[in-house]
C-alpha cells in the first residue's frame, strides 16, 4: 500500500529538473546596460566601440563588459547610477546618428540560453520606465474622413463633367447641391460607382436646388476608426524608435486606446511631447487674385476658394483652399543649417507618389508664391452639461512663403524655422509620419530606475522571509511530514518561476505579492491532508490506511477550495488592467501548480519513506 509506480517518480523528477532549468535564469540578476545602434541599422565598427570604451575609462565610469553584435552593441554596468551617467556621455559622444537606449540585459549563461531558458520579463514597476495609456481622438478621425470625402466629391464630379453648385458639410452629413434632377442623377451614378457601400445616399428637394446628401455607413465608420488606430500604432512605433528605447511595448487596448510602455525612459517630458505631437506640414499656393488679406480679416469675409492664415509675425495671408501636398508623403526629413544663410532648415524627401504630385503642382505654378504651413493640434477640455467634451484646437502657422523658382521634385528644403530645436523636432515628426488622428494621454505611470530596483529587492525579501517562516513553522508542527510539505512548497515556487519564465509573463510588484500569497495558501492543501491523516490515526486506522484515506478524503475539499479561488483569479485577470493582471496571473499559476506539488509531490515523498512497509508510528 502507498507505493507509487516508477513513472510517477520519474514524472516528478523530470518536472523538477525542467522547472529548475527554466527557473534558473532568474537567479542571474540583469545588468543595467546601454544599448547602442546606428539609426540606419548599419553594422557598428569595432573601432567605435574601442573609442567608446576609452571615453568611458577616461571619465572613470567602470563597465562590466561591452559586446558588439552586428548592428547592436551592449555595454553592461554594475549599477543604474553609472548606467545613467554613461548613457548621457555616450549620447553626447556619438551624436544624433546613433540610438542610445537604456536596457536591462539578462545575464543568462550561454548553456541556459542554448536551452532557450530566459528570465521572466520584468514589469515597468520593477525595471523603471514609463507607461502611457493614450486615447485616439475618433471625432477627429471622422472629421478628417469628411474632409477627404469633400475633396474627392469635387474631384470625381469635375472629372466626369457633372455640374454641381457646391459641396457642404452639415454635422454628420455631406450635401451636394445640383441645379436640376438630371445632373443630380448623373452625379449619383458617378459617386456610387466610386464608393459602393461606403456611403449612404439620399435625395432631397428643398426650394430651388436638388440636393444629394451622403452619410457614412456604420461599417465604414468602424473601418475608419480601426484604420486610424492602426495607423497611429504604426506611427507611434516609428516615433518610439526615433526616441531610442529598448524593448518598447505598443499595443492596442479596447477600441480606441493604445498602451505604450517605454522601459528605461527617464525624460518623460520629451517622450510625451514626441509621442503626442500632431505636428505636420501642408503646402498651399498663395492667393494671387488680388484679394487683400487685411481687408478679409477685418471684414471677416473670406473670398471664395481661399482660406485665411497667419504668418509667424502675426500678419494675415490668404491661401488657396486646395492643399497641394500634406506631410503624409514625406519619407525622410533631416534638420540642418543653410549653407548660405546659416539659418535652421529642414531637408525633405518625398516618396514617388508625393514627388510626382508635387512636381505637377509646382510645375504648373512656376513664378508664383507657395506657403508652407505648420499645423499642430492641441486639446481643450470643457464641461458641457456635466459631460466632459474635448475640442481640438488647430494651431496653424505659415512658417515660410517663397516664390517657386522651378519645378520642385522629391527633394527640397524648407526654411523659416525659429530655432535649431524646432527644426530638429519638426524633422523627427515628419520622419516618423503624422498621426492619423490626434492622441492624448489618459494615464501615465512612471517609475524611476532606483525605485524599480528597490521594488525588486523588497519584493524578493518578503518572498524569502515569508517562505522561510512558513517552512520553519510547518517543520516544527508536522515534523517529517512538515519537511515533505516544505519540499513540495519549494518545488511549487520553482515551478511558478519556471512557468512564468517559459511563457515569458511579465513579473510585476503585485505579481510578487501573488507569489507570496500563494506560498501561504499552498500549504493549505498539505494541512488539510495531514489533519485528515491525524484524524484517521485517532480513529484507530492502521498507519498505511490513514495515509491513504487522508489523501483521498482531503482531495475533494482541496478541489472545491482551489476552484473558488481560481474563479476569483480568473475574474481578476479578465477585468484587471496592468498591476491587477500581474497579480491574477501569478495567483492562478500558483494555485494550479500547488495542486500538483502539494498532492502528488508530497505523496511521492510520503510513499518513498513510509510506503510498502510496516510502520508503527508516523512523524506527523
Amino acid at each position: 500500500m502507498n507505493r507509487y509506480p516508477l513513472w510517477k517518480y520519474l514524472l516528478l523528477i523530470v518536472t523538477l529538473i525542467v522547472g529548475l532549468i527554466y527557473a534558473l535564469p532568474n537567479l542571474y540578476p540583469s545588468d543595467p546596460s546601454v544599448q547602442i545602434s546606428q539609426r540606419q541599422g548599419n553594422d557598428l565598427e569595432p573601432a567605435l566601440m574601442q573609442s567608446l570604451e576609452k571615453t568611458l575609462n577616461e571619465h572613470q565610469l567602470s563597465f562590466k563588459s561591452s559586446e558588439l553584435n552586428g548592428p547592436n552593441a551592449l555595454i553592461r554596468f554594475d549599477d543604474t547610477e553609472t548606467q545613467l551617467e554613461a548613457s548621457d556621455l555616450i549620447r553626447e559622444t556619438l551624436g544624433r546618428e546613433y540610438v542610445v537606449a537604456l536596457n536591462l540585459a539578462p545575464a543568462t549563461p550561454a548553456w541556459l540560453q542554448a536551452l532557450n531558458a530566459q528570465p521572466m520579463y520584468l514589469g515597468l514597476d520593477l525595471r523603471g520606465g514609463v507607461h502611457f495609456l493614450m486615447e485616439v481622438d475618433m471625432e477627429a478621425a471622422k472629421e478628417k474622413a469628411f474632409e477627404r470625402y469633400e475633396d474627392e466629391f469635387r474631384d470625381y464630379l469635375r472629372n466626369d463633367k457633372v455640374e454641381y453648385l457646391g459641396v457642404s458639410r452639415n454635422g454628420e452629413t455631406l450635401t451636394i447641391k445640383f441645379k436640376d434632377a438630371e445632373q443630380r442623377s448623373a452625379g449619383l451614378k458617378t459617386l456610387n460607382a466610386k464608393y459602393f457601400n461606403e456611403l449612404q445616399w439620399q435625395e432631397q428637394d428643398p426650394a430651388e436646388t436638388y440636393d444629394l446628401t451622403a452619410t457614412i455607413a456604420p461599417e465604414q465608420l468602424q473601418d475608419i476608426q480601426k484604420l486610424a488606430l492602426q495607423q497611429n500604432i504604426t506611427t507611434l512605433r516609428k516615433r518610439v524608435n526615433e526616441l531610442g528605447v529598448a524593448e518598447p511595448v505598443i499595443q492596442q487596448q479596447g477600441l480606441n486606446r493604445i498602451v505604450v510602455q517605454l522601459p528605461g525612459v527617464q525624460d518623460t517630458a520629451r517622450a510625451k511631447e514626441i509621442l503626442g505631437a500632431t505636428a505636420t506640414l501642408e503646402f498651399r499656393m498663395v492667393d494671387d487674385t488680388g484679394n487683400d488679406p487685411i481687408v478679409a480679416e477685418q471684414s471677416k469675409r473670406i473670398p471664395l476658394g481661399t482660406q485665411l492664415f497667419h504668418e509667424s509675425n502675426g500678419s494675415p495671408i490668404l491661401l488657396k483652399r486646395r492643399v497641394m501636398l500634406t506631410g503624409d508623403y514625406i519619407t525622410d526629413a533631416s534638420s540642418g543649417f543653410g549653407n548660405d544663410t546659416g539659418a535652421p532648415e529642414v531637408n525633405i524627401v518625398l516618396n514617388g507618389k508625393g514627388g510626382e504630385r508635387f512636381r505637377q503642382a509646382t510645375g504648373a505654378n512656376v513664378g508664383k508664391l507657395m506657403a508652407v504651413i505648420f499645423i499642430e493640434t492641441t486639446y481643450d477640455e470643457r464641461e458641457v452639461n456635466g459631460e466632459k467634451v474635448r475640442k481640438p484646437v488647430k494651431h496653424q502657422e505659415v512658417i515660410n512663403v517663397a516664390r517657386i523658382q522651378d519645378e520642385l521634385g522629391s527633394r527640397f528644403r524648407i526654411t523659416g524655422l525659429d530655432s535649431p530645436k524646432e527644426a530638429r523636432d519638426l524633422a523627427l515628426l515628419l520622419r516618423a509620419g503624422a498621426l492619423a488622428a490626434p492622441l492624448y494621454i489618459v494615464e501615465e505611470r512612471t517609475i524611476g530606475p532606483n525605485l524599480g530596483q528597490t521594488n525588486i529587492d523588497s519584493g524578493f525579501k518578503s518572498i524569502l522571509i515569508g517562505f522561510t517562516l512558513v517552512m520553519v513553522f510547518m517543520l516544527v508542527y508536522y515534523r517529517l511530514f512538515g519537511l515533505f510539505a516544505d519540499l513540495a512548497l519549494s518545488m511549487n515556487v520553482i515551478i511558478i518561476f519556471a512557468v512564468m519564465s517559459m511563457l515569458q509573463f511579465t513579473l510585476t510588484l503585485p505579481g510578487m505579492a501573488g507569489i507570496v500569497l500563494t506560498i501561504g495558501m499552498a500549504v493549505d492543501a498539505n494541512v488539510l491532508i495531514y489533519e485528515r491523516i491525524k484524524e484517521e490515526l485517532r480513529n484507530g486506522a492502521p498507519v498505511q490506511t490513514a495515509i491513504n484515506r487522508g489523501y483521498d478524503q482531503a482531495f475533494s475539499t482541496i478541489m472545491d477550495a482551489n476552484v473558488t479561488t481560481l474563479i476569483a483569479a480568473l475574474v481578476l485577470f479578465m477585468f484587471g488592467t496592468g498591476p491587477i493582471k500581474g497579480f491574477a496571473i501569478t495567483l492562478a499559476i500558483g494555485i494550479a501548480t500547488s495542486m500538483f506539488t502539494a498532492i502528488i509531490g508530497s505523496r511521492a515523498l510520503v510513499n518513498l519513506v513510509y510506503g510498502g512497509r510496516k510502520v508503527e508510528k508516523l512523524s506527523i
Partner: protein
Amino acid sequence: MTEQANGSTLTPEQMAPVTGGKLIDFMRLRHIALAFTIVLTLAALISIATRGLNMGVDFTGGTVMEVTYPDSKNPDIVRELLKSNGYEAVVQHFGSSKELLIRLPPPEAGDDSAEAKAALSNKVLDILQTETAAAKLNRVEFVGPQVGEELREQGGLAILLALGGILIYVALRFEYRFAVGAIVATVHDIIVVVGFFSFTHLEFDLTVLAAVLAVIGYSLNDTIVVFDRERENFRLLRSETPYEVMNISINQTLSRTLMTSFTTLIVVIALYVFGSEVIAGFALALIIGILIGTYSSIYVASNLLLMMGITKEALIPPAKDNAELDAIP
C-alpha cells in the same frame, strides 16, 4: 465507516481533536456573534456612507508623484513652494523623511488642455528641481478622470462577477443554502475590509481592490472547507441535531482553520513589514481579510445555514434513485 453510518458513534476525541475531547460549543455564541456581525457590518456601512473612501488616484483621476530629496525635507516647505506657483497639492512623507508623496487633484475641467494635464508632473518637477536641484523623481502616476471612472466601474463589476461565479459553483457542488451562506459570509468580509479602509481613511487604490478580490477567494476557501465537513457529517451523523453537527464539524476543522490562517497571515505580515510602501495597502487589506474571513466562515456562514434550517434530508442523495437502480434486474 459503516459502523459510523448507523448513528453517532464518534468518540469525544474524534469530535473535538484540538481540545482533546472537550467539544467547544461554538454555536452557543451564535446569537452574540450574530449581533456582533450585524453591528460590525452596520458600522462599516455607516463609515462608508458618511466618511466615504479615500480613493486613490486610480479611481479619482489626478496626479501622484513620489520625489526623493538628498536630505530630509519638510513637506510644508514643498507645499508652500507649490502653492506659490499656483498648485494646490497634498504633500506628505512616504517611507522616510527624504521621500515625499505629492498629490495633485484632477484639474478642474475647462481650465487646461488635456496635454497640460498630462504635462503637469513635468512642470511640478521643474519647480521642485529649481528649488533643490538634486530632487529626484521616483514615480509618477497620472490617471485621467475618464479612466478613473472606468477603473471604478470595472472594479465593481469584477467583484460582482467573482461573487456570481462562485455562487453558481457552490450551488452546484453543495446546495443553494450553502451557496447563500457562502456568499453572505463573503459579502460580509468585503464590507468589513472596505469599511476598515473607510474608517482609517487609508488610501483605497487598484492594488487594494486586488487584495479585496483575493480576500473573496481566501474567505471562500475557508468557508468551503468548513462546509465540506458539515456536508460530510450531515450524511454521517444520523442522530445529532443540525446544531450539534455544526459544532462537531467546526471543532474537527478547527486545527486546519487555525493552521492555514496562521501560515497565510505569516507571509502577508512579512509582505506588510518587508515589502515596499506601494504594496503596504494590499498587505493590510489581506491581513484584515484573513482575520475576518476566518471568523465569518464559522459565525456567519455556518450560523446562516442553521438559521435557514438546513436539514440532513437536503444533503442526502434522494433514495428514489437507489430504489430504481435496485429494481433493474
